[in-house]
């Protein structure tokens, strides 16, 4: 059955490749990424337009400008017949609609399917000439969720008809996910939107490692000079703003508390993670082991206090290492002196980090963990400590402890020792390639979390502009991938890795409108779809916080999007 939204009919294709659809409307009426629906028999198929191909029954029809030879009306009739446009449609899902209720087969079918069927991954193809139409609100809701239902968060709108596309937030937090896009493509805004949605939904706690102080406090847009509200100012006490270091203030705002790291909390693993950053040698672990072996949890302070190159004079005027020197200790511990000296020298950067103190003011880390367990959300702003070293060290240490904590809680819950189910936690990390690249993959807590922690209610939300540098094992764990425009082929391949229909989506990624559109894909999303991203503005906050997300009229949406 055809309706006004019909744009064509199936003329060929296969399950392995795309479906080919003959367009019955002007090609300008359809765009790449259009979400289409094909009804064939008892089944409904859902797919994505991935290509538009101009064709002609005879090349001469295309070569000859019939518009010059014939009157416009006649020339126009050739379009669609001898000159046509085919769509390539990537089929994604199918749904058994069953026969029409008026059909005699209906009662029997209904008995066999007491529940309304759900969409399933595509297993067959529609018949020739099955009508193809644009998805309507109902179709989008069927696949991506009803925007009016709690837990369905509007992430954006379909390109052509601006129908709301939702993320199921409960599902979203069950797996790690990623937000990608080249620099300047609006990742931060998108992240803000999702974080806001998660926080508002409040089924999981969110810990945000805010490396550039973007998410917690209010900010100003560099291009429009408009005020960008931060999570703290919108969610107030639900969000704890934590500053790294005692005196940090975050863009003029005072954090709720400060994070200082006790020297005694630092483990050799934390240091080894900084190998590349500090250019440490292979001998580092030997040296560290020796230090720990001797000084236990004071090794850091003790090592720091050693004086490299300190000498004393012996009675006979010979210069020998001073007892508090690095060399003296190395000799005594049986560790290579040069290795120890080298390590000490390189660790200088860490020794004097202002937020690493002997005795922190409070147990900020525990406080963070408690907040999270209690259902609040934490934004850890790094303040002025924006170097990669700060980032690597702090995030890793914190995450390690969190991981331990959540593992423990889960085990207690599972074994029946506790009736309290662990609160799901999402850890949002930016510049993820710094933490999750191949070299570090085995060393950081993050890769563990990415690979395993889903079982323990902890998932990652990674935000990155160089996905090709992220360890592919980690990438493959990401359920939902939200990507803005990417220019680098390797980055594109990384985002698409492990997904069906890669080639078709590749071009789509390169053609997204930066700052305006993103592509949702991955097995956390029912099917890949490009969307016009939601705007992070007052309106967004009104909708988010002012009760259920109110439906806006299409005219309002268009106005907002600048049409």
């Amino acid at each position, binding site marked *: 059955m055809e309706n006004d939204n019909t744009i064509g009919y199936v003329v060929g294709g296969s399950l392995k490749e795309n479906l080919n659809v003959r367009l019955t409307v002007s090609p300008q009426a359809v765009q790449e990424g259009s979400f289409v629906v094909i009804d064939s028999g008892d089944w409904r198929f859902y797919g994505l337009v991935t290509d538009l191909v101009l064709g002609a*029954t*005879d090349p*001469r*029809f295309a070569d*000859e400008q*019939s518009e010059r*030879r*014939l*009157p416009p*009306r*006649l020339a126009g*009739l*050739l379009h669609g*017949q*001898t000159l046509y446009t085919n769509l390539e449609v990537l089929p994604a899902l199918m749904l058994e609609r069953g026969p029409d209720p008026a059909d005699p087969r209906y009662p029997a079918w209904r008995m066999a399917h007491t529940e309304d069927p759900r969409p399933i991954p595509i297993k067959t193809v529609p018949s020739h000439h099955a009508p193809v139409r644009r998805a309507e609100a109902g179709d989008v809701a069927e696949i991506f969720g009803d925007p009016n239902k709690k837990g369905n968060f509007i992430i954006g709108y379909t390109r052509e008809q601006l129908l709301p596309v939702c993320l199921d937030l409960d599902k979203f937090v069950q797996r790690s996910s990623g937000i990608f896009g080249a620099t300047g493509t609006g990742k931060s805004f998108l992240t803000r939107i999702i974080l806001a949605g998660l926080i508002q939904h409040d089924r999981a706690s969110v810990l945000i490692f805010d490396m550039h102080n973007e998410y917690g406090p209010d900010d100003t847009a560099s291009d429009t000079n408009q005020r960008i509200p931060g999570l703290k100012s919108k969610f107030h006490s639900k969000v704890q703003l934590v500053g790294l270091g005692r005196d940090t203030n975050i863009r003029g705002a005072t954090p709720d508390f400060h994070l200082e790291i006790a020297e005694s909390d630092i483990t050799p693993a934390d240091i080894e993670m900084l190998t590349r950053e500090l250019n440490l040698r292979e001998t580092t672990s030997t040296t560290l082991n020796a230090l720990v072996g001797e000084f236990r949890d004071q090794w850091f302070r003790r090592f720091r206090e050693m004086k490299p190159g300190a000498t004393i004079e012996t009675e006979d005027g010979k210069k020998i290492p001073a007892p508090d020197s690095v060399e003296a200790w190395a000799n005594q511990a049986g560790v290579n002196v040069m290795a120890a000296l080298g390590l000490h020298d390189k660790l200088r950067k860490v020794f004097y980090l202002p937020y690493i103190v002997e005795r922190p003011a409070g147990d900020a880390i525990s406080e963070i963990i408690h907040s999270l367990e209690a259902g609040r959300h934490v934004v850890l702003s790094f303040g002025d400590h924006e170097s990669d070293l700060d980032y690597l060290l702090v995030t890793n240490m914190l995450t390690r402890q969190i991981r331990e904590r959540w593992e423990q809680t889960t085990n207690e819950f599972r074994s029946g020792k506790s009736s309290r189910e662990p609160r799901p936690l999402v850890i949002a990390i930016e510049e993820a390639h710094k933490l999750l690249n191949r070299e570090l993959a085995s060393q950081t807590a993050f890769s563990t979390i990415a690979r395993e922690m889903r079982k323990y209610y902890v998932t990652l939300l990674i935000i990155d502009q160089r996905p090709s540098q992220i360890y592919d094992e980690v990438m493959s764990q990401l359920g939902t991938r939200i990507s803005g425009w990417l220019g680098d082929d390797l980055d594109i391949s990384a985002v698409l890795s492990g997904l069906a229909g890669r080639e078709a989506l590749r071009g789509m990624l390169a053609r997204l409108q930066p700052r305006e559109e993103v592509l949702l894909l991955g097995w956390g999303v029912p099917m890949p779809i490009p969307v016009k991203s939601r705007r992070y503005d007052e309106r967004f906050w009104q909708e988010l916080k002012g009760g259920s997300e109110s439906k806006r009229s299409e005219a309002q949406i268009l106005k907002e999007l600048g049409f």
Partner: protein
Amino acid sequence: MTAIEIGRLLRASTTACVVGCRVSQANVPAFGGLVRIPLDAAYSIFGLIYDIRIEDDGLVRQLVTADNVPNDVILDNRVNRNVPVEVSVLHVGYEQHGRIFHLLPPRPPLSLDLLYTCRPEESRAFTGAGRFGYFRHILRAADLPVGELLAAHLRLANADHAEQGNHDWASAAVQELITLLRDDYPTLMTVLGALADTEAW
């Protein structure tokens, strides 16, 4: 409006027939025009005029060699003399018991059967029935001037439809032609070229 009698059948086959008639100003049949041959009360054959041939005879041949031909001689030849005019008609369908078919007629017409031009309502009924199935008879006749014939026919039929406010018939007809000829570029462009010259576009 009464149908104009054109003439009587000379010879026929299943696919076509030839009608002999007198030519005078009032009833000159048009190339591409739709005609009807009623065989009995319930059965009529529809045809399309694809050729009009005026044979010369000895007298006319002589008259053309004269320096001038007076008007009364011209009139005499047109009004009085049975200058044989042969109208060739391609069968495109038939009507039986009120139903129209775009198939070849089951029985051809017989000698001396009368042929009439179709009235506008008959033309509309025939050309509007079904989905232009009768075009295939025209397209199959390879030795006819297909492009010109279709252009002439479409122009005449379109006028009949437009009279009743139907301005879509011509477009639908051309669409069907394009569908039938989409793989035959030379023929399709010939047909469209001929159509382009008519005022219907």
